Structure formats: C-alpha cells, structure tokens
C-alpha cells in the first residue's frame, strides 16, 4: 500500500467519524457533511459521492435511531409514515440526479446548502413570535 492510499484510507475513516457524530448529534444522516468532503477532499465525482453517501447513511441512521428508540424518544409509527412518503420521493429524486450532468449537480448541491443555511438561521425569531400570538 502506497502512502497516498494509506492517507486516503485514514481520510475516509475520519470523514465517516465526523459524519456519524453529526448524524447522532443533529438527527441527520451526515450526508450534508460527507458529500462535500468526498468531492472537495478526495476529489470524487459528485454523482459517486452522492451515491456512496446514501449507502453510508443507512447503517449510521439505523444504529442512531435504535439508540433513540431504546430511550423512548422515537414513535415508530410516525417514522414509518414519514418514510412511506420518503421512498417515493427518493426514487424520483435519484432518477432525476442521474439524468443531470456532474458539474450541474455539484452547483445544485452548493446552492441547496446556502438555502438551507439561511432557512435554519432565519425562522428562529419567527418561531418565538408565533408561539404567543397563537394563544392571544
């Protein structure tokens, strides 16, 4: 094994570690971290990074949700209903992604991150204002 291969091996494990940590902490699969890391650090194709990310997310989400389930913070029925709508969308979204050019998909991903970042940071005050007005 060449030093480059060993470095890449270590990088992959570290990226996985950070992605899994974020998944457990924030309730997300960690793909938002993994996809840019694979593209920017390892130089993988956007399509392959996305497909690989989806596969890696499965065991991480499975073990994470099992931990929540044991603590009693998970209503399984809600997750099944959510997942039922989710699988239909996932199929359509993946087919659409595969029809797009790699460069376009990467730009789409970067744009998506900016929109989500703005949306998360803005509604905080909206939520605080909404709670009292509902009672009045």
């Amino acid at each position, binding site marked *: 094994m060449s030093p480059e291969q060993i470095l890449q091996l270590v990088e*992959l*494990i570290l*990226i*996985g*570690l950070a*992605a*899994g*940590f974020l*998944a*457990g*902490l*924030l*309730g*997300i*699969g*960690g*793909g938002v971290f993994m*996809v*840019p890391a694979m593209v*920017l650090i390892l130089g993988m194709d956007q*399509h*392959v*990074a*996305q497909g*690989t990310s*989806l*596969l890696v*997310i499965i065991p*991480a989400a499975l*073990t*994470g*949700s099992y931990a*929540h*389930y044991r603590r009693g913070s998970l*209503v399984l029925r*809600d*997750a*099944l*209903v*959510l*997942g039922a*709508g*989710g*699988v*239909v*969308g*996932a*199929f359509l*979204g*993946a*087919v*659409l*992604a*595969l029809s797009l050019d790699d460069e376009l998909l990467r730009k*789409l991903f*970067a744009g998506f*991150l900016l929109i*989500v970042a703005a949306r*998360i940071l803005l509604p905080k005050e909206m*939520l605080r204002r909404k709670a009292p007005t509902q009672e009045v």
Partner: protein
Amino acid sequence: MSEPNTAGERGPLLPLVAVGAAAGTMSGLLGVGGGILLVPAMVILIGFAQHRAQATSLAAIVPIAAVGALVFGRAESVDFGAAALLVVGSLVGVQVGTRLMHRLSAEALARVFGVFLVIIALAMLFG
C-alpha cells in the same frame, strides 16, 4: 414553552407523508439523508419538539437512503470500498453524537444545527 406534541402521541398522517415525500425527493437528488428538511419541517410545520423531530427523522432516513442508494448503485455511482471505510468511522461517530444529544438543550441543538450548515456552505463556496 408549551409543546403541542408529547412523546407517545401520534403525529398527523398527511402532513408526515407530505414532508416525507418532499425530503425523499431532496435526498435522492442530492445524496443526503433528508434530515436537514425533515427536522425543521416537523418542528415548524407539525409542531414536534426538537428531540422528537430528530429521532423520527433519523429513523425515516433508513428506508429513504436505501431506495436512493439502490438507484445510484444500479447506475454504478456508488464506491463500495469508500463506503465501507466511511461506515466504520460513522458507526463510532453516531454513538458519540447520540449520547451528547441527550445532554444538550433543544435550543443549543438548533444553534449547533444552524452554525454547522453555515460552515459547510462556506466550505462549498470557497473550497
């Protein structure tokens, strides 16, 4: 602060299916789990508490990511060797993250969530 939904109570059927479908489409298109849409949608639109939304999201991601991975896998857009190494790291990371989540308040979690997104967005822009 009052919370409209308590643990053990069932969430509303149609809003959950609709939120799932939207997040699933995003997941398949962008290769992410969809939790980034699932969690705020359940908190803001359905009124779930932050912890409940995150636990429900993580469980729904399992079938959503499985369908996406299958479609990408059939198109040979999955690196199985890289996936195996990422799994090793992520299985350790997810245990640490889950344990830490129960020691943090919902407000601190939301703040961590927001800051995390800004860092990634900047990395994609200037990376």
